[in-house]
């Protein structure tokens, strides 16, 4: 029947657009993730049945929230006769606090922000945070997340169950942290967003170089954060993600092989994403309260703005990496600084710096450090050292496109091709704090 189809389509659309907001509010009202998920499910089921008869309510979200909540209390009451534990919970649910309209809709986005901060709480395990965020905030299924992180669905489900149980039992509150705690807690949120993006952008192992879904989810999260919590570093991370994403079509061949930044067809870069990224970057820089994500976005912008690879402003990029070293020092940032200096002052200057890092042992198991060293050696005509470096990198690299890339390099070494340019993007995989 046409009208049934029509209602179903309408409910589907509302599910896509509103289900996460409804869930976020139900978690607050019911005080429990699992109850809220059941309530959400019941509410949409009821919508399909009742909207056919009575038409779509004027405020579908409020209708879904109060229906879900009511159905859940009903269910709890029926179960409460089964034992003192359940009785206690029902009593908890139906006691105190107000049943006011503000409680259902306390202003734009509030509950979603609560949900984000709860899913990214530092008291939850590092692995659980992105999984829980993708499940609850983004609405991905357990199977989808498991596939994206290359773990079995049961492993992933277990992580999520454990995290939810800790939230409940240790009583992690469903709150946006107060201003004095916000910087630290926002850091934990941005870490999750960036990890999700990077998992999508530089899949750490497996066949394909890019996994579109995770990067898109991270960008969606970034937009949501920017809307709910204006902050320079939120602008910064969103800008960084957009500028990286703009190169997606240009960074691999149709068969999935890596194309270096220098060799990319810049006409394939997505200009719309670049200009959005640049606007956000400008706003973040103007705030004068920016941090490491904004600096990384500024570096990405320097590449985005170069009309051709040989017109890249390496002086500016090296300066930005030095600044990043001061704000957020790490061996990987130092490696990137060394490569930028190599591009600015010549390979020998960069090689000295890379050797200093490797001698400390910090990055001796990091394949990109060895491949960067090999590239510089190759440029200096030290082919034996270059070969050793690429071989070492190959023994450490996990991901198939990267392995093919290194194998190509080694093969090219044999045919004694002329100068191979250093790839900067290749070593710019960032590890953020911690």
């Amino acid at each position, binding site marked *: 029947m046409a009208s049934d189809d029509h209602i179903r389509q309408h409910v589907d659309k509302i599910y896509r657009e509103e289900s996460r907001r409804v869930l976020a509010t139900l978690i607050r009202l019911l*005080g429990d993730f699992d109850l809220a998920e059941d309530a959400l499910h019941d509410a949409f089921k009821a919508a399909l049945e009742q909207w056919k008869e009575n038409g779509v309510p004027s405020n579908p979200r409020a209708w879904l929230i109060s229906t879900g909540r009511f159905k859940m209390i009903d269910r709890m009451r029926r179960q409460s006769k089964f034992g003192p534990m359940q009785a206690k919970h029902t009593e908890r649910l139906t006691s105190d606090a*107000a*049943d006011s309209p503000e409680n259902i809709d306390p202003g734009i986005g509030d509950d979603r922000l609560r949900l984000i901060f709860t899913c990214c709480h530092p008291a939850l395990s590092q692995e659980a945070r992105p999984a829980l965020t993708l499940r609850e905030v983004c609405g991905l299924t357990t199977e989808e997340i498991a596939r994206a992180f290359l773990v079995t669905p049961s492993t992933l489900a277990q992580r999520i169950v454990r995290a939810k149980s800790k939230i409940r039992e240790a009583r992690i509150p469903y709150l946006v942290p107060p201003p004095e705690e916000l910087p630290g807690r926002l850091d934990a949120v941005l870490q999750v967003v960036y990890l999700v993006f990077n998992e999508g952008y530089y899949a750490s192992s497996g066949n394909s170089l890019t996994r579109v879904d995770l990067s898109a989810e991270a960008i969606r999260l970034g937009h949501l954060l920017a809307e709910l919590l204006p902050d320079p570093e939120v602008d910064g991370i969103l800008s960084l993600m957009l500028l990286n994403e703009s190169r997606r079509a240009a960074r691999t061949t149709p068969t999935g092989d890596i194309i270096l930044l220098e060799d990319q067809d810049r006409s394939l870069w997505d200009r719309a994403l670049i200009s959005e990224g640049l606007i956000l970057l400008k706003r973040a820089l103007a705030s004068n309260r920016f941090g490491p994500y904004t600096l990384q976005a500024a570096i990405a912008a320097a590449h985005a703005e170069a009309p051709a690879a040989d017109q890249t402003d390496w002086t500016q990029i090296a300066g930005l990496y030095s600044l990043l070293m001061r704000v957020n020092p790490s061996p990987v940032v130092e490696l990137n600084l060394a490569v930028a200096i190599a591009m600015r002052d010549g390979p020998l200057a960069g090689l000295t710096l890379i050797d200093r890092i490797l001698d400390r042992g910090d990055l001796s198991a990091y394949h990109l450090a060895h491949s960067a060293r090999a590239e510089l050696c190759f440029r200096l005509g030290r082919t034996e050292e270059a070969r050793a470096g690429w071989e070492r990198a190959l023994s450490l690299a996990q991901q198939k496109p990267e392995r093919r890339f290194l194998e190509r390099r080694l093969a090219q070494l044999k045919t004694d091709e002329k100068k191979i340019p250093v790839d900067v993007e290749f070593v710019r995989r960032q590890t953020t704090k911690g």
Partner: protein
Amino acid sequence: MVLSTFKLSTFYPIYKQMKYICLGYIDEKAWGKMSRDGQNTFVDECFAYDEELRKNGHFIGGEGLQESGNATTLRWRGDKVTVTDGPFAETKEQLGGIMILEATDLNHAIRLMSNHPSLRLGGGSWEIRPAADMSAILEESEQRRSPRKETS
């Protein structure tokens, strides 16, 4: 409407505080190497902060522990209890004190313990463990243990 007769809680009901057991770990060797002045500052600041927690109703119990060398561990081995010298596990950091803290939620507990001077001055760590709510289990256990009143 039936709906309005239900009063719902916000995320966690505030009618009850949570009890968190805070286990303070210290590196006993590092403590031994600390200067007399350093030790005094540590003790003074920790006591002052504990006092503040007590005044605000958060500190509801706690003890500092003697060094782990004075610990004795009991275990069931085969069919009898064995007694051994020393703590449960030999690790770099040893349990140095415990505190029972009352807080509204984990964030509150983290906030209170983050300000504890022992972290800044002693280089140790605090493990925050929620106390288990045993009341329902206890109730069920009592039912099992109580003699049956009726016979069928």
